[in-house]
């Protein structure tokens, strides 16, 4: 009974931790970009202020908007939040471990994306339509690669539950695994595409014609926009956490260590997140955005990497057995 309470407590901490740090991570990325552009940059807490401002502001909704347009932001935030809470961050063996399934994660994110794409088309503006169609093109290319990456990990660790994969990788003898390296490259590409970052999309652009994510949410304002922004920031944290959890799990508190190991795990996790956000900022200033149709080749590359990874994982397993 006591254990359950502790695990629930740990899970609650994780849920609110990701929610709390998500805007800050976005703030760090923006700040790093600004510094590279020789600008002062907004303070790291700016995204928090923006969210508070948006929540306070009136929400303007188009006259022909349906219930979908109004309710989508809440559902999108909910899906993304649950997904972000499932990815092991500072400790494994928390309350919802049994649910932290890689496939569930993909399904949750897919549902959020489908809702956003529908909401983008709901009001019937041309930019919303462009954004939704581009988003779905990117999604159809990114999702298979993502699934293959997760299956590679599952194949290596023998389970699709993320905490157990992480535990396995921590405990397994350190060897150079080519398949994991390939999977990492694939996952990073997918993460860039899914989070609407350069070179696939530019989160900072004002050019409607080039937007993907921003085009879909152009009609949103006020608290609706705050939900969507929050969901986007959560998604970024989710992907960095996922990469960290699958490929750099060291420092994570193991399932049997109990709450005493959590502070260390949390500190290590936060350092990794900040590093990830800073690296993203540096990456974004060093490359141009792609032509829209090049995105297919880019994500195709991710698929090839993931495919090779799973192939190698199979072969090595056969050899080891």
């Amino acid at each position, binding site marked *: 009974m006591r254990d359950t309470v502790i695990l629930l407590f740990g899970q609650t901490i994780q849920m609110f931790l990701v929610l709390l740090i998500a805007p800050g991570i976005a703030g760090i990325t923006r700040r790093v*970009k600004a510094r*590279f*552009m*020789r*600008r002062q940059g907004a303070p790291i807490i700016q995204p928090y202020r923006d969210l508070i401002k948006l929540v306070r502001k009136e929400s303007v909704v188009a006259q022909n908007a349906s219930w979908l347009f109004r309710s989508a932001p809440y559902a999108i935030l909910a899906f993304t939040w649950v997904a972000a809470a499932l990815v092991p961050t500072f400790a494994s063996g928390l309350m919802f471990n049994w649910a932290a399934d890689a496939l569930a994660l993909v399904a949750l994110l897919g549902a959020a994306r489908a809702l956003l794409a529908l909401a983008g088309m709901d009001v019937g503006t*041309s*930019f919303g339509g*462009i954004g939704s*169609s*581009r988003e779905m093109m990117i999604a159809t290319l990114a999702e298979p690669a993502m699934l293959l990456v997760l299956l590679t990990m599952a194949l290596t660790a023998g389970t699709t539950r993320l905490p157990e994969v992480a535990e396995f990788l921590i405990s397994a003898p350190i060897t150079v695994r080519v398949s994991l390296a390939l999977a990492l490259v694939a996952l990073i590409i997918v993460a860039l595409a899914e989070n609407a970052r*350069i*070179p696939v999309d*530019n989160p*900072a*652009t*004002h*050019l*409607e*014609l*080039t937007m993907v994510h921003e085009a879909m949410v152009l009609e949103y304002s006020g608290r609706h926009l705050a939900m969507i922004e929050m969901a986007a920031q959560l998604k970024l944290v989710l992907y960095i956490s996922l990469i960290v959890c699958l490929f750099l799990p060291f420092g994570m508190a193991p399932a049997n260590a109990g709450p005493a190991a959590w502070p260390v795990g949390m500190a290590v996790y936060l350092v990794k997140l900040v590093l990830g956000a800073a690296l993203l900022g540096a990456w*974004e*200033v*060093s*490359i*141009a*955005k*792609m*032509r*829209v*149709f*090049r995105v297919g080749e880019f994500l195709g590359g991710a698929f090839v990497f993931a495919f090779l990874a799973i192939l190698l994982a199979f072969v090595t397993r056969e050899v080891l057995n």
Partner: protein
Amino acid sequence: MKRPVPTAAAALATKLRAGPDGFIRLQIDERDWIGLAMGCAQGLQDLLALWVDDDAAHMGLGVPALKLRIIVSVPLKRGSFPSVAKNHPAACRLERSIRDLHGVEPKGLPDQRNWMDHGKWPSPPPSLKKDAARRDAAYAFLATEGEGLHQIAVGPVHAGIIEPGHFRFSVNGEAVVRLEERFGYTHKGIAALCKGADIATAARIAARISGDSTVAYSYAYALAIEAALKWRPPPRAILLRGIMAEIERLSHHVNDVGAICNDASVVVLHAHCTLLREDILRTANQCFGHRMMMDRIVPGGVAADLSAAGAEAIQALLARCATNFEAVVRVYDEAPSLQDRTVSTGNVSAELARRFGAGGHVGRASGRAFDTRLNFPYGPYEALDFAMALHAGGDVDARVWVRIEEVRSSMALIRQMLKLLVPGPLMSVMPRARASEGAAMVEGFRGDIFVTVRLDDRARLVNFYARDPSCFQWPLLEAAIEGNIVADFPLCNKSFNCSYSGHDM
């Protein structure tokens, strides 16, 4: 036997002497007028400008190879003249503007829709009253037919801080099938404002036609006025004008290179170029007392002197500029992800550039070897030495490279002019006013600006007309985007960087 219709302006102009402004003026009949329009379409001469005065229509024609510039005039017959656009499409929007603004009918104009007039003017001029039905009609964009085609309307209000203009894309998924522009949102009535104004007032108006080309417009206006009055500016003023014009070119080309990179999301280059541009503008402010050097060139001379300290500041600026800009160029040249965006995007064929007489970087990036400073030199450029930036690629990349090379040549030109600078007066005394006319062409950063004025005997403007380089560049943007994808439009548009204000007048 009937005399054959001459189509070449050169054939008409034999044995005629050019005025002090370098233009040959010629009265012709409608038959010759139509012939010359056909000659424009055949490539025998370039259409420079088209405007109407009280009772005549005028057409500016240029043959750069022969260093020949002609203004032909045809009298209006019952408020109409034969359409040039019927034979030479480049004149189409000019004629639609003329009809909207003056109520003069270009007979046979293929496009009957409004252009400047959106039917929203509170008190339209009486000459337009008879066109009430046309003015009130909804604007019909050109139709596109096909399965899965849909339209995207962009503007006139844009997300960025830019001027208003409407773009109607007909697309099939991402591929652009047709782009149609609609302008007129920044119409200010420049010509009407100048009518009856004195020279100084009109100078201030001319400087505000397109704020980013304020030096070039002031320059062209001053040259036109000086040609009309046979007014000679002092040597120091001539050089200072050149220095200002080149500083203006420098600042905008640097800015454009950065802005093009920004549209490909290479934010670092944009940041560098923005810093560099700010440096240039501050130096301009320090030297001439205005960041954009507005109202510093006036008929008869210049309104601001360059001190010795100012000249040193410019030399120091050029030294900084040379290192910083070359660093930007190096990154641009060596970034494959950026080149992937710019190379082969937004192609303008050499043939189209010639047909539309596109000036500036748009023309020179498509192999049209025309630079007013070299083909029809004026002011200090007669004595200066520089090479034309010419590329044949016709894509965004070529337009970037033309700008890069012009930044380099502008810096060299400023250095040459600073060396030639000698002390002396800034203004010369205005000659006695007389009824006269004058025209001038100046190479602004976008291309050749054409200005013509007619004065009465009290030195007041009877007629003023200016033609922005954008008039012949905007139509090419519609062609450049064809076959590209919607998402590449901002990049193409930025590589053109045409003026809305200059076009709408």
